[in-house]
């Protein structure tokens, strides 16, 4: 077993080197903007750039709407499947996995052809419509993660008893979903939400092909034209992803582990 431990260390350290050297290189590069000394100039330039602020804000807003739309679609569906239509589960699960099969570029290509300005549903005829279509597209991309997170959350609560108790107290379906089920799976929903945020914030393909002023295309443009600023932005993007994942980890500690009577 001694040699086993030795090899485990070797593998781990090799892996760590592969993963950390690019990060170190990027940090080092991002600090080199001022000749001869390390400085945070690149970060200052980037954060002060009005285009950065505008595109980043745009992407944050899009991410928030994506999360809201995702919750609105996924929570009632997953709840209803557990409660009343378990026979539909395989079909719904299959559909939620489709975005892993159909590449994002193909989905957005379909949107462009189906919802162009001359179509019966001209999403792309106006700015607002195009923004809405971007949110919809992102919600579709995030569907596998959101559904899985919410369904896992529902598994840990006793859906049937909670529903019956709420019904006895006179609650309607809307009240049950919004005020009984949702608060109980909030932690699962939030971890799905942060994952969605991490995916949406720097997404390039859909935003670029729908001509939206988002963070991803801005970043792409910067890489082509600048030297040090993209390095600073890459580090910022990494920190944001790291933040989202850490929040998911922290949240998962608060999640209930099992129901009294799992259904």
């Amino acid at each position, binding site marked *: 077993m001694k040699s*086993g431990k030795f090899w485990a260390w070797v593998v781990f350290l090799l892996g760590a080197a592969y993963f950390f050297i690019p990060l170190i290189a990027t940090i080092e590069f991002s600090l080199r903007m001022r000749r001869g000394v390390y400085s945070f100039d690149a970060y200052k330039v980037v954060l002060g750039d009005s285009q950065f602020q505008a595109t980043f804000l745009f992407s944050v807003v899009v991410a928030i709407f994506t999360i809201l739309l995702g919750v609105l679609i996924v929570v009632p569906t997953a709840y209803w499947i557990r409660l009343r239509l378990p026979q539909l589960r395989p079909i719904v699960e299959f559909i939620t996995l489709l975005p892993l099969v159909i590449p994002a570029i193909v989905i957005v290509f379909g949107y462009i052809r189906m919802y162009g300005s001359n179509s019966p549903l001209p999403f792309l005829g106006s700015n607002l419509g195009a923004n809405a279509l971007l949110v919809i597209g992102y919600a579709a991309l995030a569907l596998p993660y959101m559904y899985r997170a919410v369904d896992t959350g529902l598994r840990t609560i006793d859906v049937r008893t909670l529903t019956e108790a709420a019904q006895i107290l006179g609650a309607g379906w809307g009240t049950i979903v919004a005020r009984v089920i949702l608060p109980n799976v909030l932690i699962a929903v939030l971890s799905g939400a942060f994952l969605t945020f991490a995916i949406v914030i720097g997404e390039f393909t859909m935003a670029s092909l729908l001509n939206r002023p988002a963070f991803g295309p801005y970043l792409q443009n910067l890489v082509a034209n600048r030297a040090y600023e993209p390095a600073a932005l890459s580090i910022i993007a990494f920190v944001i992803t790291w933040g989202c994942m850490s929040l998911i980890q922290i949240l998962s500690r608060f999640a209930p582990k099992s129901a009294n009577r799992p259904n």
Partner: protein
Amino acid sequence: MRLPTQWLGVTPFFIFALMFLILPTLYLMLGAFQNDAGEFTFANIVALFSANIVAAYWISIKVSLASSLIGAFAGLAIAIAIVRGGLPNWIRSATLTFSGVASNFAGVPLAFAFIATLGRLGLVTVLLNTLVGLNIYAHGFNLLSFWGLTITYVYFQIPLMVVIIVPAIDGLKKEWGEAAATLGATQAQYWRIVVIPVLWPSFLGTVILLFANAFGAIATAYALTGSSLNIVPILLYAQIRGDVLHNAHLGYAIAFGMIFITGLANIFYIWFRTRSERWLK
């Protein structure tokens, strides 16, 4: 009428899926088999087999295959090291958290990280040159190439493998190891006869998932190579932007080809998954 109220609860989901996932995809699928006049034809599919499109598919398949295989084996090694290697506990949880981050760290920032590392003026390139006198670019290495793209993709492939395979390794029951030891099996026999056959389906399934993951990716490659490396997603991107192939229906056919390949991969994935679930509960 009981049925309608039952189904009302899932109607928004199905409308969403139909309008924004299934119909747009079907639209392209059907378009792939039509000409400009809307008549049925195989001409677009046949046109896929022209030299530059076949070359694009081929390099995409090669990059996806290489990055998924390297990512899978390296990820498996790391997963075994942190679960079974007797490393301190914090390494396991730190590695898992980091894997969650790195598997979602793709696109432009990832491309730039590798430009800063292995580009012509990258940290590693320069260090190798000044410390060891090894100029990797003089030896034919180029970040904007098959190997450059593969090494970059591996950065999100390995962590994805780790995230998926660690639970599978955790699922190996302690009793199996004890039973094997009782029957006099050596450590090597235990791995060869018990562990590998049990892990094999989830391993293969994950390889396929990684393949599809790399095959559809565009942002990383686009940021890294611009349009100098002609992979399928970049070809399709250029086609959507400006009809570079001068044939709208050929664009649909390329999309059809992409779904055909990722779809085929996923059918295998589901098949392997159901096989592995029999053992790993």
